[in-house]
């Protein structure tokens, strides 16, 4: 009687049976279930339970209504693989006992459902009696108890086809057994979620470490004077400066490739025509850099003139935003032997004229500095004279704009010097000249990076040893591969 009543009851409200077990608890307020802390405790379990219960009740219905009708499968993700057809043919499948895991396959065999339906009815009726008992007296705690019972019923349905070893002692009352099993389920689920949380945290920490690593690499790369695109860092670089840095980095890469190509061509003893083409390309490539610098000077002259775009060692020799032409000629002279008499005269004249031009530009810049200083110090620096402040600023701004002109003229001087070298020398000599220039600047850049990464923590003995070892180790790095 209880069976039929409960089964009919379940048929009427199959869903309600799953959601909060309202149907089973006639007298208690359904909301209590969700108000209790237990709600959160098995919140997600509840969902899977609901699905399973609904599906099971549906199959229950199907079983009672028509035995042949297997296709009554609700579109639950967990029940997606339910195929009653297979259920009949297959041996009793194992069901996931831990609802927190995604149910890959849920086989609810027809026979099982038939059998379980009976047990469901049994446990339902018993729990219903219980709930009727307890709801009046114990309120929330009793509701919780009844929830446990309800939920444990579902566990029973799943357990029906499990190995018997998992079933607890049959001597105890069904309530107690179910409660214990239910608690075990919850412990299991809680442990699963703790493990998942731990795994997630571990993942987060590892990616945090990786991020720190990448930032460190970037810091190191920046100290070597190579700006990675789009990441200026703490200091506010203007867009023109950032753009120039990116393009300069690209130019450097290109330059490295061309130097390698030139080196290969020189040692392959190509005919002069081919070599000339390569040398002319190299000269054009240098011209491109001067173009870049000219446009950068117009957008952010301070970036160029302070040499932020170069490496520290290059910055040491910086003159008006670049290399000093007369110094370069002086350095190259011994590298270009043998030279004819005429060539020697030409190069010496070049050295002299570039020196004079540099001198003139330097003096012009000095006058600019002086004029700027006079403007800044104009009036009284001590007494508060706000009247002339903006006027002086305007004047100073006007004078400062002349700075661009000087940087542009200095770059012009460098460009003319390179062109003149190209004119004086033969093709092979010019090739060696450009290689020498590239190599010289490469060495300066390498010096910068070595300096930055030199060992500093060695204070005691073995100073010299450790220094040598570290330098030797670094010397074998790939950055020296082009040498």
């Amino acid at each position: 009687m209880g069976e039929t009543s409960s089964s009919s009851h379940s048929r009427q409200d199959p869903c309600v049976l799953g959601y909060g077990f309202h149907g089973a608890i006639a007298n208690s307020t359904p909301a209590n279930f969700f108000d209790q802390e237990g709600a959160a405790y098995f919140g997600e379990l509840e969902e899977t339970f609901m699905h399973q219960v609904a599906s099971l009740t549906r199959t229950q219905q199907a079983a009672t209504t028509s035995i042949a009708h297997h296709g009554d499968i609700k579109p639950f993700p967990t029940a997606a693989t339910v195929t009653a057809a297979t259920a009949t043919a297959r041996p009793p499948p194992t069901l996931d006992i831990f609802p927190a895991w995604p149910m890959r396959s849920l086989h609810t065999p027809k026979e099982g459902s038939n059998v379980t339906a009976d047990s469901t009815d049994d446990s339902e009726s018993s729990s219903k009696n219980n709930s009727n008992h307890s709801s009046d007296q114990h309120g929330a705690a009793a509701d919780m108890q009844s929830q446990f019972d309800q939920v444990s019923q579902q566990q029973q349905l799943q357990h029906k086809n499990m190995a018997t070893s998992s079933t607890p002692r049959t001597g105890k009352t069904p309530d107690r057994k179910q409660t214990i099993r239910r608690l075990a389920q919850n412990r299991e689920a809680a442990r699963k979620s703790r493990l998942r949380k731990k795994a997630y945290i571990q993942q987060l920490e590892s990616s945090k470490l990786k991020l720190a690593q990448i930032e460190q690499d970037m810091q190191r790369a920046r100290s070597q004077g190579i700006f990675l695109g789009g990441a200026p860092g703490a200091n506010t670089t203007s867009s023109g400066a950032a753009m120039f840095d990116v393009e300069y980095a690209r130019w450097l890469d290109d330059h490295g490739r061309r130097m390698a190509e030139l080196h290969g061509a020189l040692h392959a003893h190509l005919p002069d025509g081919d070599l000339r083409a390569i040398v002319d390309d190299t000269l054009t490539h240098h011209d491109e850099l001067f173009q870049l610098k000219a446009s950068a000077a117009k957008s952010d002259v301070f970036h160029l003139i302070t040499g932020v775009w170069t490496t520290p060692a290059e910055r040491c020799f910086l003159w008006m935003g670049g290399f000093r032409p007369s110094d370069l000629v002086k350095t190259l002279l011994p590298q270009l032997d043998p030279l004819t008499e005429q060539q020697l005269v030409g190069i010496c004249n070049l050295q002299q004229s570039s020196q004079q031009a540099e001198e003139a530009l330097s003096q012009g810049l000095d006058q600019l500095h002086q004029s700027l200083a006079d403007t800044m110090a104009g009036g009284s620096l001590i007494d508060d004279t706000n009247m002339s402040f903006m006027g002086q600023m305007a004047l100073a701004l006007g004078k400062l704009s002349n700075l661009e002109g000087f940087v542009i003229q200095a770059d012009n001087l460098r460009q003319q010097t390179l062109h003149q070298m190209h004119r004086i020398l033969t093709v092979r000599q010019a090739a060696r000249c450009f290689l020498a220039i590239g190599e010289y600047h490469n060495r300066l850049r390498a010096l910068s990076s070595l300096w930055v990464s030199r060992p500093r923590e060695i204070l005691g003995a073995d100073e010299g040893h450790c220094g040598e070892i570290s330098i030797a180790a670094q010397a074998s790095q790939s950055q020296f591969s082009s040498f």
Partner: protein
Amino acid sequence: MQYGAAAAEQAWYMPVVAPSSAVETAAERMERLASESAVVVFSVSTCCMCHAVKRLFCGMGVHPTVHELDLDPRGRELERALACLLGASGASAAGAPVVPIVFIGGRLVGAMDRVMAAHINGSLVPLLKEAGALWL
């Protein structure tokens, strides 16, 4: 370095004896001034680049004739004439200062970049020698 025929004119100007300065256009005046000396530099007294070009010539031992346009009463017109000249012969950026402009032997050499290029490629010295501004 002689600070200019223009200044001299101003100092000794006598209305009666002013022959052609009234009818002379700025361009003509410019031509005249440019041909009067071996090396002529049109400059502005406060311009630092002009100072650089002056130092360049002095460093080479040349004594150019400098005309400070800001100190000349007709300097504004002269500047415009020079701008026209530069615009015709070569590219001049908008807003860029016209000065310094160098004439050697009455012929236009150009602005600072042209002068420097000429010096580096070795054509400046022969030009100066030819004009008689430099002798070894």
